[in-house]
């Protein structure tokens, strides 16, 4: 068990460790001020340092002050003190903690029995016994099959060895399984460190780890909160869209009134406020099965956009497109809108698979004459063609006629262009954004409302 290194560590005291820890937290975007640091130091003084939970509790109470921060805090805490403990062990030249029950024991472990024991520990054991079991599992399965050297692969392999299906039927809560996986991962990392005698380089948290939780239940509220903020932002940022007219019109009435202060001499010229140029927005939203998880997100984005931009037309598509502008104009309630769209928008086609080529041609046929250089086209979709022709030439036509074209992709950039994703073909003609967290969305909104964004394409 990784103990928080206490002041026995001669080169660095606990204060220095705490400082390094808060530094990492700041690096991950948690706002930790000096006041918080002082609090944390004071709080640490009141708990037992040997008790990991107590230290964790005291630090989290003083350093991480929102549920989002808490999530990042937990990850950073685990990582930091795990690394600190391993580093200390390496420095002291001792065998890394917890590797002993490895080789000689493993020979004696009966795999079938071990599986049972693991299931038992998962069901009603303490966290500590799960940790022990993880250690045994690594030793046993590692010996029979040999490690692949890649931690993630090994974790999956061990996970598969478990009687997982029966386990779930036997009522093992999912979070226990997850805990087990985490312990296995940690044990494997520990062995790697022991083998190579060095720590792998620290890496910042990936977006994947800090992304919004994707459980359907809690997500919606989260999204609505973000959207509400976005709406305000759009309302204020929208002002920036006011025309870039070169010549201004003098407001005679105001100028005369201002001139009273200077004895009737119009020293200060008052100009008429510029009328904002309403952007015209066309939104195409994919509602097929491959984006099911994000389509709620997208529909609420659509909803918010409709509230902020008067001149806007929206379409949903799977195989064909269908205009839903009216639905949004008639209904204010989000739930009713999403029901109306999913039931009678007329997009629920035979296969349920997206056909981008057809979508573009239909869109062009319906809308081409209405596209103009001040129009903005936004596509919400994952660019997965299901093997059908991408027809980027048609998309290029759309992009050429519209002023700006954006693509919001609900997949992490990592998965772009894998499998049947053809986002790169389209990205030539538009600006593609990955958009699966609120932060991404607000990045995009900034780009959208920024005046004078260059016409799409990097070519």
């Amino acid at each position: 068990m990784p103990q928080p290194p206490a002041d026995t560590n001669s080169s660095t005291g606990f204060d220095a460790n705490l400082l390094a820890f808060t530094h990492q937290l700041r690096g991950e975007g948690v706002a930790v001020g000096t006041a918080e640091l002082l609090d944390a130091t004071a709080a640490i003084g009141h708990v037992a340092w040997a008790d990991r939970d107590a230290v964790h509790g005291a630090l989290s109470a003083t350093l991480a002050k929102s549920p989002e921060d808490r999530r990042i805090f937990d990850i950073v805490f685990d990582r930091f003190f795990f690394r600190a403990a391993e580093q200390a062990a390496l420095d002291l030249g001792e065998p890394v903690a917890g590797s002993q029950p490895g080789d000689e024991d493993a020979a004696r472990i009966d795999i079938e029995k071990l599986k049972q024991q693991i299931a038992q520990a998962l069901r009603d054991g303490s966290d500590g016994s799960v940790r022990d079991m993880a250690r045994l599992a690594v030793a046993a399965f590692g010996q029979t099959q040999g490690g692949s050297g890649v931690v993630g692969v090994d974790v999956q392999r061990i996970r598969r060895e478990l009687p997982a299906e029966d386990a779930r039927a036997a009522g093992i809560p999912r979070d226990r399984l997850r805990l087990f996986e985490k312990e296995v991962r940690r044990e494997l990392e520990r062995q790697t460190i022991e083998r190579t005698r060095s720590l792998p380089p620290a890496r910042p948290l990936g977006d994947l780890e800090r992304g919004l939780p994707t459980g359907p239940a809690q997500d919606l509220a989260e999204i609505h909160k973000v959207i509400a903020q976005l709406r305000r932002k759009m309302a204020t940022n929208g002002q920036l869209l006011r025309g870039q007219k070169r010549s201004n019109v003098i407001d005679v009435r105001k100028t005369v009134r201002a001139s009273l202060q200077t004895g009737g001499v119009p020293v200060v010229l008052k100009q008429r406020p510029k009328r904002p140029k309403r952007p015209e927005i066309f939104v195409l939203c994919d509602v097929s099965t491959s984006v099911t998880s994000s389509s709620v997100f997208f529909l609420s984005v659509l909803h918010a956009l409709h509230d902020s931009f008067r001149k806007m037309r929206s379409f949903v598509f799977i195989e064909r497109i269908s205009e839903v502008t009216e639905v949004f104009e008639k209904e204010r309630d989000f739930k009713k809108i999403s029901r109306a769209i999913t039931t009678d928008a007329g997009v629920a086609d035979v296969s349920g698979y997206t056909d981008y080529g057809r979508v573009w041609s239909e869109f062009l046929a319906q809308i081409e004459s209405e596209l103009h250089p001040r129009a903005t086209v936004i596509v919400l979709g994952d660019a997965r063609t299901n093997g059908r022709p991408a027809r980027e030439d048609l998309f290029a036509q759309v992009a050429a006629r519209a002023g700006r074209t954006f693509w919001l992709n609900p997949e992490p950039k990592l998965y772009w262009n894998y499998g049947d994703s053809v986002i790169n073909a389209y990205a030539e003609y538009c600006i593609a954004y990955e958009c699966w967290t609120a932060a991404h969305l607000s990045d995009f909104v900034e780009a959208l409302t920024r005046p004078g964004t260059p016409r799409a394409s990097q070519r």
Partner: protein
Amino acid sequence: MSTGPKTAEDLAAQLTADGYLADTQTALVAWLAIELGKPVLVEGPAGVGKTELAKSLSRVLDRDLIRLQCYEGLDEAKALYEWNYRKQLLRIQAESDGAGWDKVQDDIFGEEFLLERPLLEAITSEEPVVLLVDEIDKTDQEFEAMLLELLSDFQVSVPELGTMTSKSHPVVLLTSNNSRELTEALKRRCLYLWIDYPEAEHELAIIRLKAPELSATVSAKLVELVGEIRALDLKKPPSIAESIDWARALLLLGADSIDSKVFAETMSVIVKHRSDLETVAARVGMKLAGGDAATAS
């Protein structure tokens, strides 16, 4: 703070004895709050025992609980202090013949004419108290700013009297349902405690504590069902308070198991929205009938 709990575990045990089952983090933060003399910001969904924590803490520490319920439009006059102007008027009238202006003026802005509201009361109390500022997220940002002086230095400035510093150090708890983001300044001055829906074991222990007459099997079943209901996408997921209510309702009905009939009858105790009722009836109620048939056969 010579008396009272010595360690966080000690405090947890005392809270349990009082009928509040605190998890380790809750007990730890509460204990740190007492030790460090810092206010605690408690956040979490409605009905997980945020307010109850303050009440129980006041009993354990043997202190008075002063509660300030926040709402939109709450202002200084209702939270901090107000001049008792009627009394001031009386005073002026009574003295109008003899005394000079200066004397009366000095007199009428004395502590005697100050109406203490909860915050000032907590500050001026001779005995240490527990101050509960409930649902701070309901107030306006300006009110939050006003609290800052109190939270960081435990003092209140009354322009006519000067600064009033606390005689005893109160334990301050602020609760929030997270309906709006609180300002950084406020958060910086507080310890932070997030209370979530409890894990099944913990909730079972709470139910057993609050409704001890309910049989163990029914309680376990109840906790399991509530957990299932919480996993659904509801407008208002049932909280601990509601599980306790449900346990007591079952007790009153003398139910010895939760079958679909009992569930349909008592469902309204834990689910408070019409649309939610439909969802729960469809998703959980149906399953329950199947489960019972299986056990019966």
